[in-house]
């Protein structure tokens, strides 16, 4: 039951990522908050300081980490390892996922809370 539930989340996270990464640009452009030069610092910080982007980043981060690490775990399990080894691999994947998720979420929230950056980029006073 637990494995089928994890498999369900694996598929769901793939769909979330598909919606997020393939359609996000078009959706956001259609509602007027899209981006033309996505890695230019002004655009990066402009996006990062919008609530909708911050939430989307965290959702995608969680979905991508779960999907990727569950996939890695499944591949390693196919090597017919011992139960103890499977448990260890599962724990390492879970721990890595949690640590990366906390770091990514911290970055997203901290940058969202930096109001002075936009003012600096626009040439005004921070």
């Amino acid at each position, binding site marked *: 039951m637990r494995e089928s539930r994890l498999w369900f989340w694996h*598929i769901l996270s*793939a*769909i979330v*990522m*598909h919606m997020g*990464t*393939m359609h996000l640009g078009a959706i956001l452009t259609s509602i007027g908050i899209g981006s033309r030069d996505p*890695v230019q*610092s*002004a655009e*990066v*910080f402009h996006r*990062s300081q919008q609530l909708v982007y911050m939430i989307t980043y965290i959702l995608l*981060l969680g979905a*991508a*980490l779960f999907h*990727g*690490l569950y*996939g*890695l775990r499944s*591949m390693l399990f*196919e*090597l*017919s390892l*011992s*139960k103890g080894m499977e448990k260890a691999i599962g724990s390492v994947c879970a721990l890595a996922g949690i640590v*990366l998720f906390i*770091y*990514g979420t911290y*970055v997203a929230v*901290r*940058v969202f809370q*930096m109001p002075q*950056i936009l003012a*600096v*980029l626009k040439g005004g006073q921070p």
Partner: protein
Amino acid sequence: MQNRLNNNLGFRGWVSGGRYGLDRYAYALHRLTGLGILAYFIMHIFVTGARLGGPGQWNSRMAFFGRPIFKLGEFLVFLAFAFHAINGIRLVIIELGYMLGKPGLPAYPYSYSTLRQKPLFVVVMLIAAALMIIGGANFYSTMR
């Protein structure tokens, strides 16, 4: 371990298609691209963490990753992503039981699920190839 059958293929099972044909290689490639994307994604988390240092640190990091070798790597990630995403849609469709046909008695000439979903496989690969070509043209135009 004692109660398990010794029928695992090990690493060979990951990459060898055996007699299962193209679908099996798509499966192996799906995993390979998945591993590549996971490695990229973990690096991406730390690269985008440069936002914490403000625009200056972000610009210097982007200047570092703007080198041709990283652009090539970015393109390879794009190719992997295009294949993985489009093939993944096929896997979800198959997982939900569509495009497999109805089960029936085995009568000659035999029809089996991998044969019945072959048109979907071909369409998906064509879409992935089209995406790769469009993306490749886009990369080429931004590099010039």
